[in-house]
């Protein structure tokens, strides 16, 4: 059984006990524990169930690579699934539940899949669910959906907050082991601004666990001194609990800092995503030990050798009393020695190498440990924990020589450098035959903005596994990085060290090498996704030669751990099955993030009220207080209508329209874009921007204008006012101001840069109110000031001056077809103007109206709306707007394009009005059908609806639409099938439904 030893455990504080619960059971651990070490200390070997076969699984690793010990963590608004027990720091009150089982971890019905494993091989999804056809929807899919996914989905909103942080450094070191710390020191001594991050709460990496001497001092002391030295340097920023998540173009690095996972009760953001720009990046990310592929290598109690050593040394936890060690390299001997020295038993070390280990093997033997060379594990017995191992010759097919009882197995298949961050942005790898590993190819680094490499690997991440050499490699990386930045590398005094003399590793991809089908089907490669050696071999046999295809067919490496333990073993098995060398098979692509990061950290501050900017007009608060039913228009919030009492939005819109047409309406038009175009060449420029002749507009006059793209398509419209001889005010659509401003600047800066014109966006300087209806003039006259009489301020004229207490610009323009004015005042006076107009209008029954009433009223008048009548493929000629296209002008944007054959073409659909024969409202987006079918057997179409409303003014449905040869078909009745099964019959009419002669707006 696994237990806490009475001594040892460099990380835990035995005087600080911590209480937590696992699957409802209350357990105890110590401050400094991880959840995994605390569970092991409580003899909780079983930590979860695998995804596909629901096999019992225990923890196999001690760090970020852990595939098995995934937990549903926390409760309510702090719940999060798939958290690795190995990287979860224990805190008082932690609540964890194991995943992927029912009804309980110990008794799981889903384990029936395990018995069926023979019938669920790789690709069984693709093979099984195709027949019979009906079964997919009714049988297979519901079952698959139920079993899909690991862990539970959260049901409550995340109560925590998250943030980003932008940071800049000359050198960013990822990984705070001995190589990273030394690299940071060398770079910092050379004068670089350095950031070093470590995903773990503690610095020093493996050196602290494995000990040894650096110069005259033990490794752990050396690390402490290095850390203290770095902490004392002004140009160094040190962050632990921060993982290098991704490396991207031009030195962009993301750092995932876990601020409150270990202390959730403290105020402040839970995670912080650092968005770092680095001159040079040093990846000192260490290496990950590989499992060995033998039958039963997933039984709880089988663990990576170095992980088992971690639990012993760092947390004082024994995984078992009798630990069998199986290895193909010297490193695992350290585990055997550590176990033995802790007073526990190592019945045997099985070294798959015929020649056995180096000096360290002698050391083990001297401690009385039995060492067997050329031996392997044929099989591990046990269900929910290890009972024994059956020993065989590695060279054979698995004939059992001996069975040894034990309760833990420490395995080591060699190490794989963590090359992920090196590879994220295109760093290439080379195959190191000697150590059987892919390591960074220094000749082919990822390249940055200047075309030079910007990532330097260091230490174990560079394939240098020896501690002393790793330290020197860290120094070397630091030097390379600062020299790439043009600095002179400073000399760091490195300690003298003895490089350990090791026997070479032997490639062992299958154990034993001749394992038969029965053993291969129980030799796990990918623990989390239940991919076995036999699955990869099956994929190869079925023709999946590319590693990327094999990955997807078998799901190898597609789990939340992204194959940190399985990828190299898997592709070695694939290579052997294909009879290709491993480098020829290649690796799958390493993509960020290195381990999963929280969605919250990616979103940062962008959630809740500030998920996105909501733009507010100066009168926003009044609308809010007076029943506004909001509508998003771009990022703006506009009132769709104002609800009174129990009325529906539809009823409110009708009320607002009737009241406005009868007497007086108010519209907050502040969102309309307002651009000032000024300069000696302003007239010339306006003529290019608009289809209309704008240079002939007289100061004080207004003109409705159209803007097209060079492609000829209508892009915006609005009223242009000539303020002065050299100055125009251009109104754009709501939300169009930035776009049109950019459009104008683009032409001025990149085509006509010699023209003397300036443009400024003054949209938000002005609050603008539409005063609309037969009584609008009376209200303005009541406020007093500027003369707004018919004689002084005619339709389409502009004036400015005092309106009551306000500095106002007054435009006599109309979008509703009534007598109306738009009053603009500085935004700081907007709310007061609205109040004044409302108060003055009360005797006329003033009615504020929203965007929907505005839309309906403009449709009643046959005015087009950008985005309704246009969709980026519509030219003004389609909409009967030829009158607004100057024929005198030689050039304007879009003119040439509109001469193209398919633009200047009577076959194009044209704007018409549509009046349903029964008064109903045609559904939005309905198409007008024609006779016959097209080549696809679909009904031919001859037009479509662009705007459709119930008109309270006319008491019936009205619509505008585009129809083939429309203007020549007045009076004809055409059909619009709805998605409701009904067909809507409509008469083709003029689009101007209301006051066709414009008498009402001209009074």
């Amino acid at each position, binding site marked *: 059984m696994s237990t806490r030893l009475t001594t040892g455990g460099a990380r835990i504080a035995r005087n600080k006990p911590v209480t937590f619960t696992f699957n409802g059971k209350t357990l105890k651990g110590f401050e400094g524990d991880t959840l995994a070490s605390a569970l092991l200390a409580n003899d909780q070997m079983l930590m979860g169930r695998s995804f596909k076969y629901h096999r019992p699984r225990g923890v196999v690793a001690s760090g970020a690579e852990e595939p098995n010990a995934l937990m549903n963590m926390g409760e309510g608004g702090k719940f999060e699934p798939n958290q690795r027990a190995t990287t979860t720091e224990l805190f008082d009150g932690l609540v964890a539940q194991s995943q992927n089982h029912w009804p309980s971890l110990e008794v799981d019905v889903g384990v029936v899949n395990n018995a069926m494993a023979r019938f669920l091989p790789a690709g069984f999804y693709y093979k099984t669910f195709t027949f019979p056809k009906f079964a997919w929807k009714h049988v297979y899919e519901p079952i698959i959906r139920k079993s899909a996914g690991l862990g539970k989905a959260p049901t409550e909103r995340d109560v925590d907050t998250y943030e980003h942080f932008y940071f800049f450094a000359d050198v960013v070191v990822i990984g705070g082991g001995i190589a990273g710390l030394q690299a940071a020191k060398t770079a910092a001594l050379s004068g670089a601004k350095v950031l070093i991050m470590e995903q773990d709460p503690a610095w020093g990496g493996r050196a602290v666990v494995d000990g040894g001497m650096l110069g005259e001092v033990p490794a752990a002391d050396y690390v402490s001194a290095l850390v203290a030295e770095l902490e004392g340097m002004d140009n160094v920023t040190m962050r632990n609990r921060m993982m290098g998540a991704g490396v991207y173009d031009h030195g962009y690095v993301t750092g995932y800092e876990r601020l409150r996972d270990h202390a959730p009760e403290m105020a402040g953001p839970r995670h912080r995503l650092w968005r770092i720009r680095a001159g040079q990046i040093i990846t000192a990310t260490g290496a990950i030990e590989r499992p060995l592929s033998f039958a039963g290598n997933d039984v709880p109690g089988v663990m990576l050798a170095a992980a088992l050593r971690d639990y012993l040394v760092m947390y004082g936890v024994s995984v078992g009393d009798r630990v069998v060690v199986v290895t193909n390299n010297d490193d695992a001997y350290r585990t055997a020695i550590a176990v033995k020295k802790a007073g526990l038993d190592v019945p045997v070390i099985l070294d798959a190498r015929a020649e056995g280990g180096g000096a360290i093997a002698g050391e083990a033997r001297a401690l009385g440990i039995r060492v067997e060379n050329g031996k392997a594990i044929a099989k591990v017995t046990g269900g929910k924990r290890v009972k024994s191992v059956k020993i065989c010759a590695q060279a054979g097919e698995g004939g059992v020589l001996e069975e040894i009882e034990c309760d833990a197995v420490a395995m080591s298949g060699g190490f794989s450098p963590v090359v992920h961050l090196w590879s994220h942005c295109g760093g290439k790898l080379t195959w190191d035959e000697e150590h059987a590993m892919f390591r960074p190819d220094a000749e082919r680094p990822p390249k*940055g*903005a200047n075309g030079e490499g910007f990532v330097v690997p260091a230490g174990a991440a560079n394939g240098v596994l020896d501690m002393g050499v790793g330290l020197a490699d860290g120094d070397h990386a630091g030097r390379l990085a600062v020299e790439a930045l043009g600095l002179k590398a400073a000399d760091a005094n490195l300690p003298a060290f003895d490089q350990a003399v090791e026997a070479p590793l032997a490639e062992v991809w299958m154990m034993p090498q001749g394992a038969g089908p029965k053993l291969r089907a129980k030799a796990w490669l990918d623990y989390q996704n239940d991919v076995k050696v036999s699955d990869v071999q099956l994929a190869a046999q079925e023709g999946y030669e590319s590693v990327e295809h094999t990955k997807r067919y078998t799901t190898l490496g597609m789990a939340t751990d992204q194959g940190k333990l399985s990828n190299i073993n898997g592709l070695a098995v694939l290579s052997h099955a294909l009879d290709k060398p491993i480098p020829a098979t290649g690796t799958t692509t390493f993509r960020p993030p290195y381990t999963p990061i929280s969605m919250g950290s990616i979103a940062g501050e962008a959630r809740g009220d500030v998920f996105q900017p909501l733009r507010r007009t100066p009168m926003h608060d009044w609308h809010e207080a007076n029943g506004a039913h909001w509508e998003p228009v771009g990022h703006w919030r506009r009132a769709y209508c104002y609800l009174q009492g129990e009325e529906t939005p539809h009823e409110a819109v009708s009320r607002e329209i009737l009241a406005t047409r009868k007497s007086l309406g108010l519209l907050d038009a502040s969102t309309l874009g307002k651009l000032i175009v000024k300069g000696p060449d302003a007239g010339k420029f306006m003529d290019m921007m608009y289809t209309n002749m704008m240079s002939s507009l007289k100061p004080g006059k207004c003109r409705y204008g159209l803007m097209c793209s060079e492609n000829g398509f209508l892009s915006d419209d609005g009223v242009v006012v000539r303020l002065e001889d050299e100055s125009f005010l251009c109104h754009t659509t709501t939300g169009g101001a930035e776009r049109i401003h950019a459009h104008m600047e*683009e032409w001025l*800066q990149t085509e006509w*840069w010699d023209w003397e014109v300036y443009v400024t966006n003054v949209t938000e300087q002005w609050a603008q109110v539409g005063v609309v209806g037969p009584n609008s003039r009376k209200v303005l006259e009541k406020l007093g000031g500027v003369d707004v009489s018919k004689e002084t301020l005619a339709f389409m004229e502009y004036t400015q001056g005092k309106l009551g207490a306000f500095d106002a610009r007054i435009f006599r323009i109309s979008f509703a077809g009534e007598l109306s004015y738009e009053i603009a005042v500085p935004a700081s006076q907007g709310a007061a103007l609205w109040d004044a107009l409302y108060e003055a209008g009360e005797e006329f029954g003033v009615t504020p109206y929203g965007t929907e009433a505005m839309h309906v009223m403009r449709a009643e008048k046959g005015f087009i709306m950008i985005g309704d009548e246009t969709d980026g493929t519509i030219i003004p000629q389609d909409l009967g707007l030829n009158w607004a296209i100057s024929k005198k002008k030689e050039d304007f944007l879009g003119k040439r394009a509109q001469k193209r054959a398919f633009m200047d073409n009577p076959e194009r659909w044209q704007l018409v009005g549509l009046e349903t024969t029964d008064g109903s409202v045609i559904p939005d987006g309905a198409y007008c059908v024609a006779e016959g079918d097209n080549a696809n057997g679909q009904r031919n179409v001859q037009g479509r609806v662009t705007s459709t409303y119930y008109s309270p003014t006319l008491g019936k449905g009205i619509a505008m639409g585009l129809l083939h040869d429309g203007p020549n078909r007045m009076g004809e009745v055409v059909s619009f099938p709805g998605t409701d099964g009904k067909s809507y019959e409509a008469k083709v009419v003029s689009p101007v439904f209301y006051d066709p002669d414009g008498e009402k707006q001209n009074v």
Partner: protein
Amino acid sequence: MLILECPYCGVTGEETEFHGGGEAHIKRFGPGSSDADFETYLFMRENPKGVHFERWRHVNGCGKWFHAARCTMTLEVFGTYSAQTFEPPKEIKDAISAKRPGWSWREFS
């Protein structure tokens, strides 16, 4: 995510401050031009693997348009320069030649 230097305000900023505007050095053809010229102007674009000239706007910044010479394969930036020019300036061309001898792009080399 790229970093670019705006030649107008001198800021070296990340891509989120900028907005890409497609190919640079395009000659406008207006009314009276042939269909072929107009088609080339409006639609025909280079799609090189390697040296490319682009327009960018410092949209979250000084608002100015500028040009960038860039490698589409390695994302190396050879230089940025004013948008108010008909061709890449000599120092930009030299910078490219130093890194990509024998390069050519449309009529430039």
